[in-house]
């Protein structure tokens, strides 16, 4: 599903964020991506989402070589990849419903279908009945679940999460992490960037560890 081979990423300021990364993620896998801040976790996710392009090497996502994908095809690619952010990135002047509907509106989904899929996504994150509230009226954990609902509303085959539990207390963090595990069981390839080692033990997921831009550890899932 996601294949990196000899991927280098050097930023315009000369900083080398990734150095010779090679790995392969199968469809339906759950991945924990760890490493200290600055190790290159975010850069790796950005390459998968095509926010950045690799300087060298091949990035193949969903059978598409992103190195060669023209910029105008970026939106179509991103619709295949749901993203959850550490700071949720919700629109605070819009209701929960409108926030979750955004990727569907963007993709040109019809009105009735939008309502159906938003409710399905809300159901998955256990927030049914809160669609007409504004994000500010929700707790941090609930806001993050709205962020997850938005990421899965369009049913993307790949789900990325960048430190999704960074701002939550341990109990809420566990709930969110369980949610990712549950989504993974529904055949979604899930990559979670986190520096919280607890999650790796709890979920028993495959581990990819980055250190200063190099892949230093690729530990198979405990099954």
């Amino acid at each position, binding site marked *: 599903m996601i294949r990196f081979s000899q991927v280098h990423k050097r930023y315009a300021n000369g900083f080398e964020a990734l150095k010779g990364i090679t790995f392969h993620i199968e469809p339906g896998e759950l991945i924990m991506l760890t490493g200290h801040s600055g190790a290159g976790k975010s850069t790796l996710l950005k390459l998968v989402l095509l*926010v*950045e392009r690799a300087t060298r090497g091949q990035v193949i996502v969903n059978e598409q070589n992103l190195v060669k994908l023209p910029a105008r095809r970026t939106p179509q690619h*991103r619709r295949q990849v749901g993203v959850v952010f550490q700071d949720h*990135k919700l629109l605070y002047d819009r209701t929960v419903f409108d926030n979750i509907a955004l990727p569907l509106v963007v993709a040109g989904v019809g009105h009735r279908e939008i309502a159906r899929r938003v409710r399905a996504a809300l159901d998955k994150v256990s927030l049914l009945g809160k669609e007409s509230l504004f994000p500010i009226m929700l707790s941090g954990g609930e806001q993050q679940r709205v962020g997850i609902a938005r990421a899965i509303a*369009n049913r993307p085959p790949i789900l990325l999460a960048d430190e999704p539990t960074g701002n939550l207390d341990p109990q809420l963090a566990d709930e969110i992490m369980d949610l990712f595990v549950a989504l993974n069981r529904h055949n979604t390839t899930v990559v979670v960037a986190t520096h919280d080692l607890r999650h790796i033990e709890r979920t028993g997921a495959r581990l990819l560890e980055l250190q200063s831009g190099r892949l230093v550890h690729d530990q198979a899932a405990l099954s």
Partner: protein
Amino acid sequence: MKAYFLRHAQMLLFALGQLVRQPAASLMTLSVNAIALALPAGLFLLMENTTRASAAWEARPQISVYLKSTVSENELTGLSDRLLSRADIDEVIYVSAESGLAEFRDLSGFGAALDLLDENPLPAVLTVYPARDATAPEQMSALATEFENLPNVEQVQIDLQWLQRLRSLIQLAQRGLWVVVAFLATGLVLIISNTIRLAILSREDEITIIDLIGGTPAFIRRPFLYSGWLQGLLGGILAWIFLALAYLLLRGPLIRLLELYQSDLHINGPGWRYGFILMVVGASLGWLASRITTERYLRQLSPDAEHSIARKKF
């Protein structure tokens, strides 16, 4: 397809809603737009009326041949026939001294002063209209020199110069008008660009998110294009209202002035045609302005951009 139109209608309503939410600020921006549109439109209106008026004055090029007072009826007919028989002369009109005086009395308003004179001070005149292909300034002056050497001719005058001057003056004014139009159109584009730029900055978070979840540049651009288009259109309508107000204020005094000159010219106001053109031009410039601004901004969202906005937000 229905969903597509529905979405566009929503965008239009959204853009309108944004304007209505800040009525004072919107009215000020729209007024600036309107003034930038109304000024050149007003000048066009002025130009149109002046050109029409000058066309009414504009006779065929003519040469006035003033005859000596001693000329006899026979000599006159002979001269007139001789001129008429030439290929480079179209028409010769004889104005006798008496009818010349009557006309002068009518038009000049010096009737009472003329009554004091013992005899008619005006000479008889032959007004000569050269053929169409003989109206070039050199040909006209050659004819004039020829006429001056004829017997019984006192003086020859070409009534051409002032017309040429008027014509080149109008041409200059027209050229100047286009320069003003170019400046003000650029100004309008810059004004709308700036409001669009501020709107983009205030919604940067939203744009970033839409970009990250797969919104196309067209989707991101659409509300801003509607906003720019709408600002231009409303500016155009307001410009028309301004122009109509200015016209209504000036029309009365202008008509009185024309009456004093005994002119039966009537003035053209800013009619529907002006309204239509102002709206079309305003909307087009507004659309263009926001197209340019959004294009510049959206380029930064590309994964190949040097400084991506999305990358610093994620």
